[in-house]
């Protein structure tokens, strides 16, 4: 029987990133994936024959370039496609606004709707990228322990403190002031155009159970800016869909010596004398290892996989209180042609549609969408973030046909009436109706659809509560407090058990950050013979 150094439970992108780093450090690594394909939330699947789509996550923009470089992903087949348009914001009765990579081009686009906003934009974008640069090192750092921070941690924090003090005073205060603010307030400090406000604010609420008027949503925006340096996120696709990224990661892991088993559902993580010792598969098979890293979310890890007797009651109650009620759904459409969007002129259509498309015309619209979720219903006028990846990557659909990936918010995990299985189709119909309001010929083009509700996110993709970020990214579940205090350094109360998923710092999004940071801590422990 082989004895592994480390078993990674879950082959999502973070699990695979961790596996790559661990195997490269010479550890005998095994990845166990429940589904038939690895990738977790970053997969490409077929909607109907001939139409392939990034099933859940659809933008690879946040993936850390350093990881791609370290793991030589280009060699393993990753080809990034970056459309010139970042996001096209549509409104039913107002002109559209397109945000481009280039500031000057964006400014001239905004000028069409507001001279004042066009003037504010460079200052806004500049301030965000300056602040983003200061925050960026945080992402790659393991959050320090606040009890007895180690020397290295104090050093790192000190460096961070210095770079904070290196910010212009105005930006330093902005950073302090913005963090706890409602993102609706933040955007209105700069802009007057509702559509522009809503487009920017949406990034602060994406994936969370919060509306633009919820305090602290500005942190979401700042955090995203730290990831890519921009207030308004770019769109980036992987040729072949997000699955191509995780397939490449899997190849990189295998070539570094890791083993990957699919259709291997871990039923339990067992511990002896408070040390994680082995995993038990559904088939009953036991596999032992010196350490185990869970890429599953914290609730699944501690409430389902680990026997509660191994955990301290106060820790358990913290995990039970860890908020992970999802608020989003996904609808993927197979289209026989490119839909016509009203208000877009034919010539510019393709270029403008090539990035992300934002639907959610004003702040109140977004807030009302959230109101519905607060009272346990899905929003009938939801916020949507859409991509048509086949515009940049024709290989995803038959010639002339397209796939459209529609991220929908809000769709609360807990419905007050009925359940998601009985309301799935009705929900999708409503969403498509709203969409058809912007693209009148959409219905005629739909050749097939895939509807993924929060319940599906839980059942099929193993996201507890259907939360795409493995838990709310609110200030109380952030950094040293992610997922809970005392467990934020990828180590858990059970010796030899680690976390490496989005439920740890720096959180959700296809960044690879949690996986890479966790691997670094695990390797440290192996080297120090602490395992």
């Amino acid at each position, binding site marked *: 029987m082989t004895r592994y150094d480390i078993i990674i439970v879950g082959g999502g992108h973070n699990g695979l990133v961790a596996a790559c780093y661990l195997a490269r450090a010479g550890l005998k690594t095994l990845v166990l994936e429940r589904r038939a394909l690895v990738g977790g939330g970053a997969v490409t699947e077929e909607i109907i024959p001939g139409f392939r789509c990034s099933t859940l996550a659809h933008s690879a923009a946040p993936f850390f370039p350093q990881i791609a470089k370290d793991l030589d992903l280009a060699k393993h087949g990753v080809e990034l496609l970056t459309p010139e348009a970042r996001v096209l914001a549509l409104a039913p009765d107002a002109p559209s606004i397109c945000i481009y990579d280039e500031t000057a081009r964006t400014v001239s686009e905004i000028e069409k709707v507001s001279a004042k906003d066009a003037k504010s934009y460079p200052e806004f974008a500049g301030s965000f990228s300056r602040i983003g640069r200061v925050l960026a090192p945080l992402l790659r750092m393991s959050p320090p322990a*606040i*009890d007895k921070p180690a020397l290295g941690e104090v050093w790192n924090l000190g460096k961070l403190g210095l770079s904070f*003090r290196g910010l212009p*005073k*105005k930006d*330093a*205060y902005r950073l*302090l*002031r*913005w*963090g*706890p*603010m409602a993102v609706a*307030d933040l955007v209105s*400090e700069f802009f007057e155009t509702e559509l522009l406000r809503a487009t920017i604010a949406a990034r602060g609420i994406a994936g969370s159970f*919060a509306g633009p*008027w*919820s*305090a*602290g949503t500005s942190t979401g925006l700042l955090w995203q800016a730290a990831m890519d340096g921009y207030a308004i996120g770019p769109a980036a696709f992987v040729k072949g869909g997000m699955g191509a990224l995780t397939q490449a990661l899997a190849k990189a892991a295998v070539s570094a010596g890791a083993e990957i088993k699919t259709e291997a559902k871990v039923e339990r993580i067992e511990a002896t004398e408070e040390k994680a010792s082995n995993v038990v598969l559904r088939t009953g098979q036991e596999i032992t290892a010196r350490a185990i890293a869970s890429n599953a979310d914290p609730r699944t890890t501690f409430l389902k996989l680990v026997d509660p007797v191994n955990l301290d009651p*106060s820790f358990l*109650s*913290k995990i039970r*209180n860890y*908020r992970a009620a999802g608020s989003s759904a996904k609808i993927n459409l197979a289209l026989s042609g490119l839909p016509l969007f009203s208000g877009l002129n034919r010539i510019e259509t393709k270029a403008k549609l090539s990035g992300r498309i934002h639907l959610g015309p004003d702040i*109140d619209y977004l*807030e009302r969408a959230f*109101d519905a979720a*607060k*009272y346990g219903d899905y929003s009938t006028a939801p916020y949507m973030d859409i991509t048509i990846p086949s515009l940049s990557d024709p290989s995803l659909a038959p010639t002339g046909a397209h796939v459209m990936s529609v991220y929908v918010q809000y769709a609360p995990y807990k419905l007050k009436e009925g359940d998601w299985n009985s309301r799935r189709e009705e929900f999708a119909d409503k969403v498509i109706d709203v969409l058809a309001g912007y693209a009148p010929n959409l219905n005629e083009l739909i050749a097939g659809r895939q509807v993924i509700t929060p319940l599906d996110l839980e059942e099929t993709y193993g996201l507890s509560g259907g939360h795409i970020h493995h838990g709310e990214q*609110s*200030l*109380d579940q952030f950094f040293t*407090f992610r997922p*809970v*205090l*005392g467990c934020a350094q990828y180590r858990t109360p059970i010796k030899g058990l680690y976390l490496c998923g989005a439920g740890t710092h720096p959180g959700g999004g296809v960044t690879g950050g949690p996986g890479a940071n966790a691997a670094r801590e695990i390797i440290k422990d192996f080297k120090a013979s602490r395992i």
Partner: protein
Amino acid sequence: MNKYDVIVIGGGHNGLVNAAYLARAGKKVLVVERRHVLGGAAVTEEVFPGFKFSVCSYVVSLLRPEIIRELELPRHGLEILPLDGTFTPMQNGDYLWRVNDHARTRREIARHSRLDAEAYDEYGKAMIEMAHFVKPIMSMTPPDPTSLNPKGLSDLLFLARRFQKLPDEDKYNQVQLMTMSAVDFLDQWFETDVLKATMSASGIIGTFRGVRSPGTAYVLLHHYMGEIDGAFRSWGLSRGGTGAISNAIADAAREAGVEIRTEAPIARILLKNARAKGVVLANGDEIYADTVSSSVDPRLTFMKMVGEEHLPGDFVDDLKRYKFRGSSGKVNLALDGLPDLKCLPGAGPHLRGAISISPSVEYMERAYDEAKYGRFSRRPYIDIVIPSLTDPSVAPPGKHVMSCFVQYAPYNLKEGSWDEKREEFGDTVIDTIAEHAPNIKDLILHRQVLTPLDLERDFGLSEGNIFQGELTLEQLFFLRPAPGWAQYRTPIRNLYMCGSATHPGGGIMGAPGRNAALQMLKDLR
């Protein structure tokens, strides 16, 4: 000659505290108040003959014990009467009644949930720990985190070390309190909806936020602050109304040599070479002083009394961003008798505490939703107190005064103006109360309805915000009222701020006035 060491603008409780401390340090101080009464929002007025109302602020909760002690307020007539308990009528005909007697409250909560009764003790203990942590921060001048000044750095380190020394459990609670919504926080402790609704209500008072908005948990602490001070119970009424507090402070100030002028509205602050030199009254009188200390809010102080043109552009931008957004109104009723609650009829002791119209979390949240889109709540949260039960001196024999604090009443209405909507708003409040106390309509002899617009016009609170600006994280501590200007100083030399718009903020606390005085005395030395 007409010359003082310090002129304090505004005779609210903070202005008076500020003046008293300065005078006790030997300064020659003048307080100028616009109205005929002292106290600002802490006033007692006989609005209707025989009925004395604490017109705006109606309970004492956080008045700093060091101020009571140092200014010897009891000797100057301050007497706090305990306000016992909070009574919440529920929609199903039941009620929740929490009182100061711990054992009784426990039994009452156990009637709703045994688990919650257990948790209530634990919760109380945790909150007291947290309040201990926060307490010293109340009386410190906030450091400037961007400056390299060693004092600022050492203050920051002091805070960081204090936090670091907390037991893990408390660190956890502290971060949650600062960042979570009141309901999310309480969800972790309790299951009884009405309990959570009533407790969370304290988190939204005076802010434009709902009980589910992050950042509202922090105010839950305030309820425990009073307890640890040991001076009196967390909530109380002042004999003679809240105006009596202001009068006691004014008395202490006069004894220390402060001169006070009422009915003396200020036109502007006199400047010479970007320094404050005194004030000009509306009647044209000029009064000179070495230092001017303003207890009115920053919008009035800077936009009206100083003038944008004399201020740095960044500071003006920050002032414009400073959020007031009043969200509450007040209805004061003169009653012919006592209301009879459907869920617990009779004139029992339950009427002597606060009566909270906060039957469920969803009720509270829906009240907020309406305000978000620019309407006053059709079914608002109301905090009712009948002070005449505790202090009969405020109403004629057999009659009563009833104070109703109402939220939400957004300053900016989407349709119509507050002058048009005032009576409709009053009716909504009465209708809401009548659902729980049907006889209320027959008892009303007089009513006074204060909208956010009235609070602005009559009491000088910009946009009707009762705290001189929202108490939200981005406007607290070293960010209050503006980044870089949280140390009671202003860009105008010799001009200071000492009102609720400075750290630690609103409520009848007195801390801004005292902290500012200490800072001024340090600077003047």
